[in-house]
């Protein structure tokens, strides 16, 4: 009885707080993405500039660890039995990755382009050693920020 009540409280709390936090995070991601729209991050290694135009090139990286709320965790657990698309993980990974890219861009300062971008994801957190649960996931984005000489 008590367990059911605790479960319901946690699930409702997880759902409402989780949804609100997610919405807020997405708003922040979208505004910042607009701000950095002029700093492209690409997976290619070449750009249309000459060697002589480059002022400096530095390695930049950004990472973010995002955790799943209680409700979505239960949802994913249930989904694991039936198989199929685990929709509840989608926003988690999407947010972590976009946040990591944004943090990388923030570190790039006044760079003009980030080349050879790579993104990696891993599940970490207190439950990382127990493979059957997901605590949280980490996304890391890294690339080479190129600043061109201003004429």
């Amino acid at each position, binding site marked *: 009885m008590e367990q059911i009540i605790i479960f319901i409280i946690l699930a409702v709390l997880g759902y409402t707080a989780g949804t609100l936090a997610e919405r807020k995070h997405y708003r922040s991601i979208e505004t910042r993405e607009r701000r950095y729209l002029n700093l492209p991050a690409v997976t290619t290694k070449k750009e249309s500039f000459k060697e002589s135009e480059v002022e400096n090139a530095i390695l930049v990286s950004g990472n973010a660890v995002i955790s799943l709320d209680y409700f979505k965790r239960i949802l994913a657990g249930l989904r694991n039995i*039936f198989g199929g698309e685990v929709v509840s993980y989608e926003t988690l990974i999407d947010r972590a990755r976009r946040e990591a890219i944004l943090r990388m861009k923030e570190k790039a300062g006044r760079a003009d382009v980030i080349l050879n971008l790579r993104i990696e994801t891993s599940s970490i957190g207190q439950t990382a050693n127990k493979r059957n649960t997901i605590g949280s996931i980490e996304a890391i984005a890294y690339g080479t920020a190129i600043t061109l000489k201003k004429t």
Partner: protein
Amino acid sequence: MILTNIESVPGKSIVEHYGLVSGSTVRAKHVGRDIMAGLKNIVGGELTGYTELLHDSRQQATDRMTEQARQLGANAIVNVRFATSAVAQGASELYVYGTAVRVE
């Protein structure tokens, strides 16, 4: 949509690029497949159930990336990379990303 995992599209020249595009999907296999795979693990060999599952999911992730590129007005994605990570037991995430470009 042309997809390559090299810097360019051979025979064409890149005119414009639109930055990063990516697609991802998380898939879980059902308990039945788990049990079958467990049995198969005893004798080894290919786990066809998983091969199919991962192939389908990767296809879906690629479709999502292509959809993003199309939205941006690109007609090719260069330097495409695939990444797979296990986010939880029985669920893996397929991620594909590349640079959206317009070639002529």
